[in-house]
Protein backbone atom coordinates (compact mmCIF):
# COMPACT_ATOMS: atom_id res chain seq x y z
CA UNK A 1 0.00 0.00 0.00
CA UNK A 2 2.99 2.10 -0.56
CA UNK A 3 2.94 4.72 2.05
CA UNK A 4 -0.52 5.89 1.14
CA UNK A 5 -1.49 6.08 4.79
CA UNK A 6 1.52 8.18 5.70
CA UNK A 7 0.99 10.58 2.83
CA UNK A 8 -2.71 10.83 3.51
CA UNK A 9 -2.17 11.51 7.19
CA UNK A 10 0.46 14.08 6.33
CA UNK A 11 -1.74 15.98 3.95
CA UNK A 12 -4.72 15.77 6.28
CA UNK A 13 -2.83 17.16 9.26
CA UNK A 14 -1.15 19.96 7.37
CA UNK A 15 -4.40 21.05 5.77
CA UNK A 16 -5.98 21.29 9.20
CA UNK A 17 -3.26 23.54 10.49
CA UNK A 18 -2.77 26.09 7.73
CA UNK A 19 -4.80 29.12 6.76
CA UNK A 20 -4.92 28.09 3.15
CA UNK A 21 -5.61 24.35 2.87
CA UNK A 22 -5.93 24.46 -0.89
CA UNK A 23 -2.33 25.52 -1.24
CA UNK A 24 -1.09 22.39 0.50
CA UNK A 25 0.67 19.82 -1.62
CA UNK A 26 2.45 16.65 -0.60
CA UNK A 27 4.84 15.11 -3.11
CA UNK A 28 6.12 11.63 -2.51
CA UNK A 29 9.43 10.30 -3.73
CA UNK A 30 11.56 7.27 -3.03
CA UNK A 31 14.77 7.39 -1.10
CA UNK A 32 17.40 4.75 -0.46
CA UNK A 33 15.81 3.35 2.60
CA UNK A 34 12.23 4.47 2.25
CA UNK A 35 10.22 7.40 1.10
CA UNK A 36 10.23 11.08 1.39
CA UNK A 37 7.31 13.46 1.56
CA UNK A 38 7.87 17.00 0.43
CA UNK A 39 5.28 19.31 1.86
CA UNK A 40 4.59 22.70 0.36
CA UNK A 41 2.20 25.21 1.84
CA UNK A 42 0.87 28.60 0.90
CA UNK A 43 2.64 31.86 1.57
CA UNK A 44 2.87 32.62 5.21
CA UNK A 45 1.73 29.23 6.38
CA UNK A 46 5.18 27.75 6.81
CA UNK A 47 5.55 29.26 10.25
CA UNK A 48 2.41 27.56 11.43
CA UNK A 49 3.46 24.21 10.09
CA UNK A 50 6.87 24.40 11.71
CA UNK A 51 5.85 26.04 14.94
CA UNK A 52 7.89 27.34 17.79
CA UNK A 53 11.20 25.53 17.90
CA UNK A 54 9.92 23.14 15.28
CA UNK A 55 7.45 21.61 17.67
CA UNK A 56 4.62 21.34 15.24
CA UNK A 57 6.88 19.99 12.52
CA UNK A 58 8.20 17.42 14.95
CA UNK A 59 4.70 16.37 15.91
CA UNK A 60 3.74 16.04 12.26
CA UNK A 61 6.76 13.85 11.57
CA UNK A 62 6.00 11.66 14.57
CA UNK A 63 2.41 11.15 13.55
CA UNK A 64 3.18 10.60 9.87
CA UNK A 65 5.81 7.99 10.70
CA UNK A 66 3.41 6.26 13.01
CA UNK A 67 0.88 6.09 10.21
CA UNK A 68 3.46 4.50 7.93
CA UNK A 69 4.65 1.86 10.35
CA UNK A 70 2.54 -0.89 8.86
CA UNK A 71 3.53 -0.04 5.36
CA UNK A 72 6.96 -1.64 5.47
CA UNK A 73 8.37 1.23 3.59
CA UNK A 74 11.41 1.82 5.70
CA UNK A 75 12.15 5.33 6.77
CA UNK A 76 9.77 8.18 6.15
CA UNK A 77 11.21 11.62 5.79
CA UNK A 78 8.98 14.62 5.93
CA UNK A 79 10.45 17.79 4.50
CA UNK A 80 8.80 21.16 4.58
CA UNK A 81 9.72 22.94 1.42
CA UNK A 82 9.85 26.69 1.50
Amino acid at each position, binding site marked *: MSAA*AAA*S*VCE*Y*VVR*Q*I*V*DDPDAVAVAQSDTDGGIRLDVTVGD*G*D*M*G*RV*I*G*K*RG*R*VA*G*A*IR*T*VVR*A*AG*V*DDEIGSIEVEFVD
Partner: protein
Amino acid sequence: MEWVETTAKTTAEAKESALDRLGVHEDDAEFEVVSEAKTGLFGRVKEDARVRARVRPATPRAKDDRRRRSKGGGRGSRGQGRDNGGSRNSGNRGSGNRGQGNKGQGNKSDRNKSSGNGGSGPDKGRSQDKGRSHQDGRSHQEGQGRAGRTDSTRSTDRSKKQERSVTDNEATMPLPEQADIAQEFVAGLAERFGASVDFVREDVADDEIRITVNGDDLGRMVGRRGNTAVAIDELVRTVLQRQAGSSRDGRVRVDIGGVRARRTEALANFCREQAALVRESGMARALEPMGGADRKVTHDTIADEDGVDTISEGEDPNRRVVIVPAGDA
Protein backbone atom coordinates in the same frame (compact mmCIF):
# COMPACT_ATOMS: atom_id res chain seq x y z
CA MET B 1 -1.12 27.98 47.56
CA GLU B 2 -2.88 27.78 44.32
CA TRP B 3 -1.28 28.85 41.11
CA VAL B 4 -3.28 30.01 38.18
CA GLU B 5 -1.87 29.98 34.72
CA THR B 6 -3.00 32.38 32.06
CA THR B 7 -2.07 33.16 28.51
CA ALA B 8 -2.38 36.34 26.52
CA LYS B 9 -0.72 38.22 23.74
CA THR B 10 1.71 39.90 26.07
CA THR B 11 3.03 39.02 29.49
CA ALA B 12 1.44 42.19 30.82
CA GLU B 13 -1.99 41.13 29.65
CA ALA B 14 -1.46 37.62 30.93
CA LYS B 15 -0.56 39.04 34.32
CA GLU B 16 -3.63 41.17 34.25
CA SER B 17 -5.91 38.26 33.60
CA ALA B 18 -4.10 36.22 36.23
CA LEU B 19 -4.84 39.01 38.69
CA ASP B 20 -8.44 38.90 37.66
CA ARG B 21 -8.56 35.20 38.30
CA LEU B 22 -6.95 35.54 41.69
CA GLY B 23 -8.89 38.60 42.61
CA VAL B 24 -5.96 40.36 44.20
CA HIS B 25 -3.98 43.45 43.60
CA GLU B 26 -0.71 43.23 41.77
CA ASP B 27 1.20 43.92 44.96
CA ASP B 28 -0.29 40.87 46.55
CA ALA B 29 0.50 38.40 43.85
CA GLU B 30 3.58 36.55 42.79
CA PHE B 31 4.30 36.04 39.16
CA GLU B 32 6.31 33.68 37.18
CA VAL B 33 6.59 34.16 33.47
CA VAL B 34 6.37 30.66 32.10
CA SER B 35 7.01 31.77 28.55
CA GLU B 36 7.23 35.07 26.79
CA ALA B 37 5.04 35.87 23.86
CA LYS B 38 6.90 34.85 20.79
CA THR B 39 6.73 35.54 17.17
CA GLY B 40 7.73 32.32 15.54
CA LEU B 41 9.64 31.55 12.44
CA PHE B 42 8.97 33.81 9.51
CA GLY B 43 7.20 36.21 11.78
CA ARG B 44 4.00 34.26 11.59
CA VAL B 45 3.33 32.03 14.50
CA LYS B 46 2.45 33.79 17.66
CA GLU B 47 2.95 31.87 20.81
CA ASP B 48 1.03 33.51 23.56
CA ALA B 49 2.75 34.67 26.67
CA ARG B 50 2.12 32.34 29.56
CA VAL B 51 2.21 33.53 33.11
CA ARG B 52 1.70 31.79 36.40
CA ALA B 53 0.58 33.66 39.43
CA ARG B 54 -0.54 33.05 42.93
CA VAL B 55 -1.54 35.02 45.92
CA ARG B 56 1.59 36.00 47.72
CA PRO B 57 1.97 33.92 50.82
CA ALA B 58 0.85 35.73 53.91
CA THR B 59 3.32 38.02 55.55
CA PRO B 60 2.48 40.26 58.44
CA ARG B 61 1.61 43.72 57.37
CA ALA B 62 0.91 47.06 58.85
CA LYS B 63 -2.71 47.20 59.78
CA ASP B 64 -3.39 50.13 57.58
CA ASP B 65 -2.42 48.21 54.57
CA ARG B 66 -4.55 45.18 55.14
CA ARG B 67 -6.76 45.30 52.24
CA ARG B 68 -5.87 42.14 50.49
CA ARG B 69 -8.51 40.11 48.90
CA SER B 70 -7.05 36.74 49.33
CA LYS B 71 -8.27 33.77 47.46
CA GLY B 72 -6.75 30.99 49.43
CA GLY B 73 -8.53 31.18 52.70
CA GLY B 74 -7.47 29.18 55.67
CA ARG B 75 -4.00 30.51 55.96
CA GLY B 76 -3.73 31.58 59.53
CA SER B 77 -2.59 35.13 59.41
CA ARG B 78 -4.91 36.00 56.59
CA GLY B 79 -8.24 37.53 57.13
CA GLN B 80 -8.31 37.08 60.85
CA GLY B 81 -10.39 39.52 62.71
CA ARG B 82 -11.25 41.25 59.55
CA ASP B 83 -14.63 42.49 58.81
CA ASN B 84 -15.28 40.38 55.81
CA GLY B 85 -12.42 38.01 55.30
CA GLY B 86 -14.68 35.06 54.93
CA SER B 87 -17.19 36.23 52.47
CA ARG B 88 -14.73 37.72 50.07
CA ASN B 89 -12.87 34.49 49.84
CA SER B 90 -15.61 32.85 47.97
CA GLY B 91 -15.60 32.46 44.25
CA ASN B 92 -13.29 35.20 43.25
CA ARG B 93 -12.77 33.76 39.85
CA GLY B 94 -15.55 35.51 38.07
CA SER B 95 -13.67 38.55 37.06
CA GLY B 96 -16.78 40.10 35.61
CA ASN B 97 -17.89 41.03 39.07
CA ARG B 98 -14.99 43.28 39.53
CA GLY B 99 -15.43 46.93 39.68
CA GLN B 100 -19.15 47.14 39.74
CA GLY B 101 -18.70 48.17 43.26
CA ASN B 102 -21.14 48.60 46.06
CA LYS B 103 -21.77 52.21 46.08
CA GLY B 104 -22.25 53.36 49.54
CA GLN B 105 -19.80 51.03 51.12
CA GLY B 106 -17.33 53.80 51.16
CA ASN B 107 -19.52 55.75 53.46
CA LYS B 108 -19.19 53.33 56.27
CA SER B 109 -16.69 54.62 58.64
CA ASP B 110 -16.96 51.61 60.87
CA ARG B 111 -15.56 48.48 59.35
CA ASN B 112 -17.60 46.15 61.50
CA LYS B 113 -20.71 47.89 60.55
CA SER B 114 -19.99 47.49 56.93
CA SER B 115 -19.66 43.80 57.32
CA GLY B 116 -22.89 43.61 59.20
CA ASN B 117 -25.17 45.20 56.72
CA GLY B 118 -26.28 42.01 55.12
CA GLY B 119 -28.83 41.68 52.45
CA SER B 120 -26.87 43.08 49.59
CA GLY B 121 -26.19 39.69 48.20
CA PRO B 122 -23.34 37.25 47.96
CA ASP B 123 -21.22 39.57 45.88
CA LYS B 124 -20.97 42.04 48.61
CA GLY B 125 -17.85 40.75 50.23
CA ARG B 126 -15.67 40.59 47.24
CA SER B 127 -16.71 43.78 45.65
CA GLN B 128 -16.42 45.67 48.82
CA ASP B 129 -12.85 46.72 48.38
CA LYS B 130 -13.50 47.96 44.94
CA GLY B 131 -16.65 49.65 46.01
CA ARG B 132 -14.82 51.46 48.64
CA SER B 133 -11.98 52.48 46.54
CA HIS B 134 -14.24 53.73 43.84
CA GLN B 135 -15.77 55.88 46.44
CA ASP B 136 -12.54 56.99 47.88
CA GLY B 137 -12.21 59.98 45.70
CA ARG B 138 -15.53 61.37 46.76
CA SER B 139 -16.33 60.10 50.16
CA HIS B 140 -13.20 58.69 51.59
CA GLN B 141 -13.39 58.75 55.33
CA GLU B 142 -10.39 59.55 57.35
CA GLY B 143 -11.30 56.96 59.91
CA GLN B 144 -10.75 54.07 57.58
CA GLY B 145 -7.07 54.49 57.61
CA ARG B 146 -6.76 53.26 54.09
CA ALA B 147 -4.45 54.52 51.48
CA GLY B 148 -7.20 56.33 49.75
CA ARG B 149 -5.41 58.14 47.04
CA THR B 150 -3.39 55.30 45.66
CA ASP B 151 -6.34 53.01 45.96
CA SER B 152 -8.55 55.00 43.79
CA THR B 153 -5.88 55.43 41.19
CA ARG B 154 -5.34 51.73 41.08
CA SER B 155 -8.90 50.83 40.88
CA THR B 156 -9.42 53.17 38.00
CA ASP B 157 -6.61 51.47 36.21
CA ARG B 158 -8.14 48.16 36.93
CA SER B 159 -11.53 48.99 35.62
CA LYS B 160 -10.01 50.21 32.41
CA LYS B 161 -8.15 46.99 32.01
CA GLN B 162 -11.26 45.12 32.89
CA GLU B 163 -13.08 46.64 29.98
CA ARG B 164 -10.29 45.72 27.68
CA SER B 165 -10.24 42.11 28.69
CA VAL B 166 -13.97 41.87 28.27
CA THR B 167 -13.58 43.07 24.73
CA ASP B 168 -10.91 40.48 24.12
CA ASN B 169 -13.17 37.76 25.33
CA GLU B 170 -15.78 38.40 22.72
CA ALA B 171 -13.83 36.35 20.24
CA THR B 172 -13.43 33.43 22.62
CA MET B 173 -14.86 30.17 21.43
CA PRO B 174 -16.65 28.18 24.12
CA LEU B 175 -14.80 25.12 25.29
CA PRO B 176 -17.38 22.57 24.11
CA GLU B 177 -17.09 23.94 20.58
CA GLN B 178 -13.35 23.65 20.78
CA ALA B 179 -13.80 20.08 21.90
CA ASP B 180 -15.98 19.45 18.85
CA ILE B 181 -13.21 20.67 16.59
CA ALA B 182 -10.64 18.57 18.39
CA GLN B 183 -12.79 15.48 18.23
CA GLU B 184 -13.51 15.93 14.56
CA PHE B 185 -9.81 16.31 13.86
CA VAL B 186 -8.91 13.17 15.75
CA ALA B 187 -11.75 11.24 14.11
CA GLY B 188 -10.38 12.13 10.67
CA LEU B 189 -6.91 11.18 11.75
CA ALA B 190 -8.02 7.83 13.16
CA GLU B 191 -9.81 7.06 9.92
CA ARG B 192 -6.57 7.59 8.01
CA PHE B 193 -4.77 5.40 10.52
CA GLY B 194 -7.32 2.73 9.85
CA ALA B 195 -8.44 2.69 13.46
CA SER B 196 -12.03 2.80 14.59
CA VAL B 197 -12.38 4.87 17.67
CA ASP B 198 -14.90 6.30 20.02
CA PHE B 199 -14.64 9.25 22.31
CA VAL B 200 -15.31 9.91 25.95
CA ARG B 201 -15.57 13.51 26.93
CA GLU B 202 -15.09 14.70 30.49
CA ASP B 203 -15.02 18.09 32.09
CA VAL B 204 -12.00 17.64 34.26
CA ALA B 205 -12.01 21.25 35.40
CA ASP B 206 -13.90 24.43 34.72
CA ASP B 207 -11.51 25.25 31.97
CA GLU B 208 -10.46 21.87 30.74
CA ILE B 209 -12.14 19.18 28.74
CA ARG B 210 -10.48 15.85 28.32
CA ILE B 211 -11.31 13.71 25.35
CA THR B 212 -10.24 10.13 25.83
CA VAL B 213 -9.97 8.21 22.60
CA ASN B 214 -10.74 4.51 22.85
CA GLY B 215 -10.53 1.80 20.26
CA ASP B 216 -9.11 -1.58 19.42
CA ASP B 217 -6.32 -0.69 17.10
CA LEU B 218 -4.74 2.29 18.75
CA GLY B 219 -1.19 1.00 19.03
CA ARG B 220 0.15 3.11 16.21
CA MET B 221 -1.63 6.21 17.45
CA VAL B 222 -0.09 5.78 20.86
CA GLY B 223 3.40 4.95 19.75
CA ARG B 224 6.43 4.02 21.72
CA ARG B 225 6.25 5.51 25.19
CA GLY B 226 3.18 7.39 24.11
CA ASN B 227 5.15 9.60 21.76
CA THR B 228 2.59 9.57 19.02
CA ALA B 229 -0.24 10.23 21.44
CA VAL B 230 1.63 13.27 22.72
CA ALA B 231 2.30 14.43 19.18
CA ILE B 232 -1.39 14.12 18.35
CA ASP B 233 -2.30 16.21 21.37
CA GLU B 234 0.20 18.79 20.22
CA LEU B 235 -1.39 18.83 16.78
CA VAL B 236 -4.82 19.21 18.34
CA ARG B 237 -3.55 22.26 20.13
CA THR B 238 -2.23 23.67 16.89
CA VAL B 239 -5.45 22.96 15.05
CA LEU B 240 -7.40 24.70 17.78
CA GLN B 241 -5.09 27.64 17.67
CA ARG B 242 -5.79 28.07 14.02
CA GLN B 243 -9.51 27.27 14.06
CA ALA B 244 -10.57 28.69 17.40
CA GLY B 245 -8.23 31.65 17.63
CA SER B 246 -5.42 32.36 19.97
CA SER B 247 -7.47 34.05 22.63
CA ARG B 248 -9.39 30.91 23.44
CA ASP B 249 -9.97 30.07 27.04
CA GLY B 250 -9.35 26.79 28.67
CA ARG B 251 -7.86 23.72 27.25
CA VAL B 252 -8.87 20.65 25.38
CA ARG B 253 -6.77 17.61 26.01
CA VAL B 254 -6.83 14.57 23.84
CA ASP B 255 -5.77 11.38 25.51
CA ILE B 256 -5.30 8.52 23.09
CA GLY B 257 -6.06 5.23 24.73
CA GLY B 258 -5.91 6.81 28.17
CA VAL B 259 -2.12 6.76 28.15
CA ARG B 260 -1.84 10.30 29.29
CA ALA B 261 -3.96 9.64 32.34
CA ARG B 262 -1.79 6.66 33.23
CA ARG B 263 1.36 8.62 32.62
CA THR B 264 0.14 11.52 34.72
CA GLU B 265 -0.58 9.16 37.55
CA ALA B 266 2.88 7.65 37.25
CA LEU B 267 4.44 11.11 37.26
CA ALA B 268 2.41 12.11 40.32
CA ASN B 269 3.58 8.99 42.13
CA PHE B 270 7.15 9.74 41.22
CA CYS B 271 6.76 13.32 42.51
CA ARG B 272 5.38 12.08 45.81
CA GLU B 273 8.37 9.80 46.19
CA GLN B 274 10.73 12.66 45.46
CA ALA B 275 8.85 14.90 47.87
CA ALA B 276 9.29 12.29 50.58
CA LEU B 277 13.03 12.25 49.93
CA VAL B 278 13.20 16.03 50.21
CA ARG B 279 11.23 15.95 53.43
CA GLU B 280 13.51 13.36 54.95
CA SER B 281 16.77 14.87 53.85
CA GLY B 282 15.90 18.54 53.99
CA MET B 283 17.70 18.88 50.69
CA ALA B 284 16.17 20.28 47.55
CA ARG B 285 15.92 17.98 44.57
CA ALA B 286 15.79 19.13 40.99
CA LEU B 287 13.74 17.06 38.60
CA GLU B 288 14.48 16.46 34.95
CA PRO B 289 13.45 19.23 32.59
CA MET B 290 9.82 18.74 31.64
CA GLY B 291 7.25 20.38 29.45
CA GLY B 292 4.75 22.78 30.92
CA ALA B 293 2.00 20.22 31.25
CA ASP B 294 4.18 17.84 33.20
CA ARG B 295 5.51 20.63 35.35
CA LYS B 296 1.97 21.55 36.23
CA VAL B 297 1.29 17.99 37.31
CA THR B 298 4.40 18.22 39.45
CA HIS B 299 3.45 21.53 41.03
CA ASP B 300 -0.10 20.40 41.65
CA THR B 301 1.01 17.14 43.19
CA ILE B 302 3.58 18.74 45.44
CA ALA B 303 1.11 21.41 46.48
CA ASP B 304 -0.82 18.69 48.28
CA GLU B 305 2.25 17.42 50.06
CA ASP B 306 3.28 18.73 53.44
CA GLY B 307 6.66 20.16 54.18
CA VAL B 308 7.74 20.78 50.61
CA ASP B 309 7.30 23.44 47.98
CA THR B 310 8.21 23.69 44.35
CA ILE B 311 9.97 26.27 42.30
CA SER B 312 10.75 26.31 38.60
CA GLU B 313 14.13 27.09 37.17
CA GLY B 314 15.57 27.69 33.76
CA GLU B 315 14.00 28.40 30.44
CA ASP B 316 12.09 26.12 28.16
CA PRO B 317 12.90 23.59 26.90
CA ASN B 318 15.19 23.08 29.86
CA ARG B 319 12.88 24.42 32.47
CA ARG B 320 12.68 22.17 35.46
CA VAL B 321 10.93 21.89 38.76
CA VAL B 322 12.91 21.90 41.97
CA ILE B 323 11.34 20.43 45.06
CA VAL B 324 12.50 22.35 48.11
CA PRO B 325 11.81 22.00 51.80
CA ALA B 326 8.90 24.22 52.80
CA GLY B 327 9.98 27.73 53.56
CA ASP B 328 12.96 27.71 51.24
CA ALA B 329 11.01 28.60 48.16
